[in-house]
């Protein structure tokens, strides 16, 4: 039996089927979206902008040459909804938007205040998007402004906030999911990290990691925590890897600067017999003194203990004040207290479930920071001091 013709046909079919691909989009037909922004304009329409790589300019210096030869460009679209705005933006793009590499999404302050409920769904529904996404609120500005800031260190400015976030000791890529988890949970309130655009004494405008934005249960921005307050909150939630503190040491004529690493956090909840909820927060860490403006010689154990106690006491106060501020001003549980209560006292949680908004502001919180100062660097007392100044 001669099977050769059949084999040839099968072979040709294989070639025809495997060599082509219906879904192939050539790389030259794609445009990579590295960051995008959403804003609400004064007339109530949405504006979506994207920062796209300009592949032919990638090799050149980011700011080199005359205007228009940057390694990226920004395109915008305006419409009644987010999708309509994207549609308008696509009308100006010669290529298909590919979002697999997008890591940052800026949300303008006005949109955040108005509520971001309608913004969130597409990021998880559309398989072309990544859930590993950082969403940012742009404090006092629009998302577009944040996209437009050229950042000197990075070729693509969109990479900057992501790297800043990492450099200051945050967790990157998780903010979108964290938002969803908090807002879908009973009683919790979500947060997002914040950037703002600053122009200080340095000549150029730049992007600054500001802190965290607090959202209420209606997806609306209600307030901000500044950088240090935000870091305290992350410390409580065990999501921080680097923090520096500067605290005054009373009676020692100055302050010490401490860098903390290896963070620990324990939150203990308790419910009194008359159903008052209490939280006890124990924050721990290993610290290193990097700056000493006091007259203390840290080779003496008592001096190190003095500084350590001062740092711990004052940081505890600051953390308490931050929690108090959130409780009084915003009434939003951004510390996962409700989850802590659920883990530790599930039956009480079940009873209090629906009324957490009323309970949270009245929770009695005690904070106890316990940083262990382990190292003080290469120097005992400051070198510039005279013998008589050193204690």
């Amino acid at each position, binding site marked *: 039996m001669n099977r050769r013709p059949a084999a040839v046909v099968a072979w040709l079919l294989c070639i025809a*089927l495997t060599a082509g*691909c*219906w879904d192939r989009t050539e790389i030259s037909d794609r445009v990579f979206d590295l960051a995008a922004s959403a804003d609400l304009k004064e007339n109530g329409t949405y504006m979506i902008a994207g920062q796209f790589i300009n592949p032919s300019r990638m090799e050149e210096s980011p700011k080199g040459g005359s205007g228009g030869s940057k390694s990226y460009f920004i395109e915008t679209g305006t419409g009644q909804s987010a999708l309509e705005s994207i549609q308008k933006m696509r009308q100006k793009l010669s290529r298909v938007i590919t979002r697999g590499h997008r890591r940052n999404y800026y949300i303008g302050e006005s949109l955040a205040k108005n509520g971001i409920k309608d913004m969130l769904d597409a990021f998880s529904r559309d398989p072309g998007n990544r*859930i590993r996404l950082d969403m940012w609120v742009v404090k006092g500005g629009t998302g577009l402004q944040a996209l437009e800031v050229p950042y000197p260190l990075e070729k693509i400015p969109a990479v900057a906030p992501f790297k800043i976030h990492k450099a200051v000791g945050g967790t990157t890529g998780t903010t979108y999911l964290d938002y969803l*988890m908090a807002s879908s*949970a009973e009683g919790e309130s979500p947060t997002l990290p914040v950037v703002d655009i600053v122009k200080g004494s340095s000549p150029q405008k730049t992007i600054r990691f500001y802190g965290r934005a607090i959202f209420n249960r209606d997806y609306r921005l209600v307030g901000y925590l500044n950088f240090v307050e935000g870091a305290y909150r992350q410390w409580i939630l065990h999501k921080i890897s680097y923090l520096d503190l500067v605290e005054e040491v009373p009676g020692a004529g100055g302050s010490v600067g401490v860098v903390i690493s290896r963070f620990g956090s324990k939150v203990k909840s308790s419910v009194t017999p008359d159903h008052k909820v209490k939280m006890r927060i124990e924050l721990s860490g290993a610290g290193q003194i990097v700056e000493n403006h006091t007259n203390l010689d840290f080779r003496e154990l008592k001096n190190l203990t003095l500084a350590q106690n001062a740092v711990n006491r004052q940081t505890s106060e600051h953390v308490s004040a931050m929690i108090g501020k959130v409780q009084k001003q915003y009434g939003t549980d951004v510390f996962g207290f409700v*989850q802590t209560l659920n883990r530790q006292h599930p039956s009480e949680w079940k009873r209090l479930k629906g009324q957490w908004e009323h309970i949270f502001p009245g929770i009695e919180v005690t904070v106890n920071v316990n940083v262990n100062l382990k190292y003080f660097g290469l120097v005992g007392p400051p070198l510039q001091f005279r013998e008589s100044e050193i204690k």
Partner: protein
Amino acid sequence: MKLSGYQLFWLIFTMAFGMTALFTVSLPIAVAKQDAWLSTVLAALISLFTTFVAVRLSLLYPGQTFIEYSQVILGRWLGKIMLLSYLATWVSLTGIILREYADFVYLALFDSTPLWIVILVMLGASVYVTCSGGLRGIGRCGEIIGPISVVGCLLIIIFSVNDWDWLRLLPVYANTGLLPIAKGSLLPASFLGESFIVVMLIAFMPKPRRAQISALLGVAAASAAVLAMTLIVVMTFGPNIPARLIYPLYSAVTYISVMEFIQNIDVLAVLLWIVAIFIKLSLYLFVTSYGSAQFFGIKRWKNTIWFIVPMVFVISLLPRNFDIEMIYTKFWLAVIYPISLVGIPLLLWMVGSLRKRTLSH
């Protein structure tokens, strides 16, 4: 056609793990929240029991397939009527599996390739292995593909370590209770319980006694893998989000990012599930065609493939959308699983053992 105990283990593991992990994690989390892993444990116990029954039942009549001995146990006509429902289930199930596979591929990879091409390519591969190699070919595929899916499973576990938050598993039991946990165990139990297919396979084993340990180990290993995947999903996404995801494990894999370096590895996961579905599909294709050949008394069993494949192909194209497949899943859960995979085997086992005992006396 011969099948070794080792091959049976891999076949059962591969077919039970892939689809269970991909399709059945969402529902337990929806009803049992962070206690979904308890549901999986319960599902494992249930499916171990049903597998045990299926194996024991087959060992009553060594060398005979389900098609043959159920006619002995129940008598010719009653047996035929019952078997007809099994054949119908297998054909429809093969079609639905094919469609579920194609839908997943559509979502994850290709959205402009026509669905029937995606289906046809997979169907072609299964038909090829079934036709040319029969059960032996499938068994050998299982030997190769099974370990690959274990490696894939381990990689998912290792890469996702960073995203684990053990606190998300707490509190255990307090928020849910026995009923939700039991309810959540049904769907994974029904998928793991598809190891019932051994009733058609043990007849091909030269040493049928080995079937019991192989099948039970296969189900246990698959359950352990599904348990790990359930834990990963809950530890990554918490108890609320995965309940609303269609493929929670797939989403968890897309979320993986190891040191900003190993990212977007979802294609790897897709590949793993495709090979798992390939094994399952081929097994069902073999069982259906061999079974119907025995049922209708056709000498050359491979001839029946050419009747079954068009049916399967048409069935796979029938559902208009995802929801209609969900209706089949509901029907599967409410009718097919309790009756065909639990009730009837149990009944047959009891009647069969009684018959054997009275015969020997």
